[in-house]
């Protein structure tokens, strides 16, 4: 019974594919899985836009959208209709072909990232041996679409936004890769299903997720920072910083193409959160051993939505960094921390069990964090101030 | 035609295109693009020979390709750095005009 619930999507797929003649079955299996991903995640995106707007509203003591449908749940439908019926404006001097291709390239590359994410037990489209490498290869090519969008618009704000975006994404991709490498070192595999399997066992009812180790926690924090930057979310949303650059690289996009960019950004957020979940939060494994009867896909998507909520929370709280500070932070704080974390992960691997490795690894990381943080604050000349009064 | 011959022909074509680009374009960056294409054509040869060679498990061709990719990345970085430095100095990337070693 629980087994069926866990595997319901897999069984459903097999049943659907089984209806077809034998020769078509391998192709049909892929098509069904791809169709499921292509339908499900945009729906999740639609839901998330309401979720985000309502969440931001609550953080700001507002109600948020509540006029379209019950509790505003139909808001994305209204938004979708609006963006579909809007005029598609292409600037006269824009590079038409590139301008047209950019959103498509973004959405396609982002969708490809979902192929290797294990969304539940046996629920992965392509269980590749080098899944993580595939993910990063695909992730690296999204930068190109951003550049295409900004460059082809022939708008100064767009170009500045695109250059910022590309520079930022390249810088933080290094951190993203390095923080994931620690996981690869410990689990000994680039395959995401194997990484989840490595975390899916329990002692005293608690799971062996990588986040519950010193190097895992540090890696997760660095991964989260890099993720926020990689998806251009606040506080790293400079490429589209509306107060400076109007809308950055999608300033000159309207209608459906703009909606595609919007979709691409959120999909990137989902896939990268899904990867973070897989790497550090145990993927689809349950948080307690007595909860393993709950379907695995439920855990995966709850963890995903938790990450999305953190994104929204951060967006509702933090102001935006400046370009040079962002770069400094990437290269002078996040990167050294990631490299050190690799070292600590190696130590962890070879120190064997026992409390000693906990103490030593934690101590190294905390000391490094405090030291680097202090150095960062000193370099930026920031600190609390006191003020004097004239009577 | 065997598959290997097909891959080799594609590689030869790409190599020739890259060579033609490198030899005929005026823009220094496009010359670099041509060189990258040639390198990639060579990589394709390595991979194809590895795949259809007698000992794929020895990984020789694959390793060569991987190292070649790494070296090409270094080459691109240094090459483009040089182009930028030259551009700063001479304000052009036109190779017909950059014809002196002395600035």
């Amino acid at each position: 019974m629980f087994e069926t619930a866990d595997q319901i999507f897999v069984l459903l797929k097999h049943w659907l594919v089984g209806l077809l003649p034998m020769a078509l079955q391998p192709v049909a299996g892929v098509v069904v899985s791809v169709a499921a991903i292509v339908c499900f995640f945009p729906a999740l995106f639609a839901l998330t836009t309401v979720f985000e707007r309502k969440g931001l509203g609550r953080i700001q003591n507002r109600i948020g959208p509540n006029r379209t449908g019950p509790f505003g749940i139909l808001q994305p439908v209204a938004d979708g209709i609006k963006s579909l019926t809007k005029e598609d404006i292409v600037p006269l001097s824009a590079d038409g072909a590139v301008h047209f291709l950019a959103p498509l390239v973004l959405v396609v590359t982002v969708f490809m990232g979902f192929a290797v994410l294990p969304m539940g037990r046996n629920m992965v489209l392509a269980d590749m041996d080098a899944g993580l490498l595939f993910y990063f290869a695909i992730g690296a090519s999204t930068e190109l679409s951003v550049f295409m969008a900004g460059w082809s618009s022939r708008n100064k704000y767009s170009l500045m936004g695109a250059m910022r975006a590309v520079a930022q994404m390249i810088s933080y991709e290094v951190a993203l890769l390095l923080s994931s490498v620690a996981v690869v070192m410990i689990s000994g595999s680039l395959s995401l299903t194997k990484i989840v399997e490595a975390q899916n066992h329990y002692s005293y009812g608690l799971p062996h997720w990588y986040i519950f180790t010193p190097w895992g926690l540090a890696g997760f924090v660095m991964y989260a920072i890099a993720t926020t930057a990689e998806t251009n979310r606040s506080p790293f949303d400079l490429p589209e910083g509306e107060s400076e650059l109007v809308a950055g690289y999608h300033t000159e996009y309207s209608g459906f193409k703009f909606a595609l960019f919007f979709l691409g950004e959120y999909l990137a957020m989902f896939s990268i959160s899904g990867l973070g979940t897989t790497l550090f939060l145990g993927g689809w494994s349950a948080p307690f051993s007595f909860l393993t009867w709950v379907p695995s896909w439920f855990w995966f998507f709850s963890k995903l939505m938790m990450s999305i909520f953190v994104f929204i929370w951060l967006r509702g709280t933090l102001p935006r960094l400046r370009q040079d500070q962002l770069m400094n932070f990437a290269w002078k704080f996040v990167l050294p921390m990631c490299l050190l974390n690799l070292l600590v992960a190696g130590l962890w691997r070879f120190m064997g069990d026992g409390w000693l490795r906990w103490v030593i690894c934690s101590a190294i990381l905390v000391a490094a964090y405090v030291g680097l943080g202090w150095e960062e604050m000193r370099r930026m000349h920031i600190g609390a101030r006191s003020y004097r009064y004239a009577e | 035609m065997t598959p290997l011959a097909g891959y080799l022909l594609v590689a030869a074509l790409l190599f020739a295109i890259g060579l033609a680009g490198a030899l005929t374009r005026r823009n220094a960056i496009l010359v670099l693009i041509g060189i990258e294409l040639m390198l990639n054509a060579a990589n394709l040869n390595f991979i194809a020979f590895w795949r259809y060679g007698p000992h794929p498990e020895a990984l020789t061709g694959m390793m060569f390709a991987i190292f070649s990719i790494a070296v090409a990345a270094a080459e691109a970085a240094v090459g483009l750095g040089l182009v930028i430095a030259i551009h700063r100095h001479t304000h052009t990337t036109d190779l017909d005009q950059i014809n002196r070693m002395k600035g």
Partner: protein
Amino acid sequence: MSALESSSAIKTEKLEGWNRPPVIEPDGEGELMEVAMGPHHPSTHGVFRMDLALDGERVIRLKPVFGYLHRNHEKLGEGQSYLASMPFTDRLDYICSLTNNWAYALAVEKLIGQAVPERAEYLRVILGELTRVQNHASSIGFLIQEMGASGTPLMYAFREREKILDLFEGLTGSRMMCNYMRFGGCRVDASAAWLDAVRKVVAGLPGFVDEFERFLTSNEILMARCQGVGILRPELAVNAGVTGPMLRASGVNYDIRKVDHYGIYDRFKFRVPLGDHWDVYDRYMIRILEMRESIGIVEQALKDIPGGPVMDQKAKIRGLRPKPGEAYGRIEAPKGELGFYLQSDGSPNPYRYRVRPPSLINLTILEDMCLGQNVADVVLIFGSVDIVLGEVDR
């Protein structure tokens, strides 16, 4: 510097360092990028344009272009009676209409030699300081909004501002366009219930300021963005005529409430916070500290507000014909020195009517603060000036 410390002895002639803004040389090769920021730009607070010349993202030149919102306020004032100008002053700086009313009323009272009853003075102080609180709250909200904070600080600021606007509405009948003060007092008296409502709101304000400070003051991103950015040297500030929180953030002790002794400010105890680093963060913090001081003033005023009329019985509102002469009334408006200059030739209309708008004069120094900064800092520095374009363009 020490000469600048004592407010009464600002000596402008001896100051050094005032010449043309330092010309920044582009350090890269290649030509500059010209960007027109505005008039349709999300963070220019209305219709305002900055013509920027950028080297990469560094500002090399900045030319502010004013006047998109020109409404001919001064010439209108010369064409109509003294009373009819009063509602128009609301629309200058539409965030703080009450202080605009006050400054104008003060100018006319000086022109005709009109005394103001005690209770009206207290009401003016209460309303003026509440205006300052809500102006500073929304201005730092906008400032952080321009830093990209998705509107949360702004919403918190507006949540508190709404409470103060409710008070204004309860007394004057309108939330923003108060049109409340008259020559010789105030239009209507405040009921005891209204004063109680003020007490309740004022009791809640320190909590709001604390929340705001916990929320953002020690935020590393805010500090990184604001500290050391947009430095305005005190000499330059004094010479450019900058006033208000901008000037005090530049470390100059100059508060018209203390200097000019207008109204009844001598009776209240309050301090003037000063900045030592002259940057955007100082401007942010000075506003927060001034909010705290203002809350203190309102509390004191509420404690000993006397009874009595709010309007001088002999005061004439309609058909005012001042004797020929001139007067300049100025107050410490939330944005700086707001002054009205009136010249009468004995007719029912002023012969000359001139506003000294703090927003405009504080904005003239924008280029000097922005040169050499990042383009992202321009909006920040612009926000830290705290302008309302209705007042800039008049």
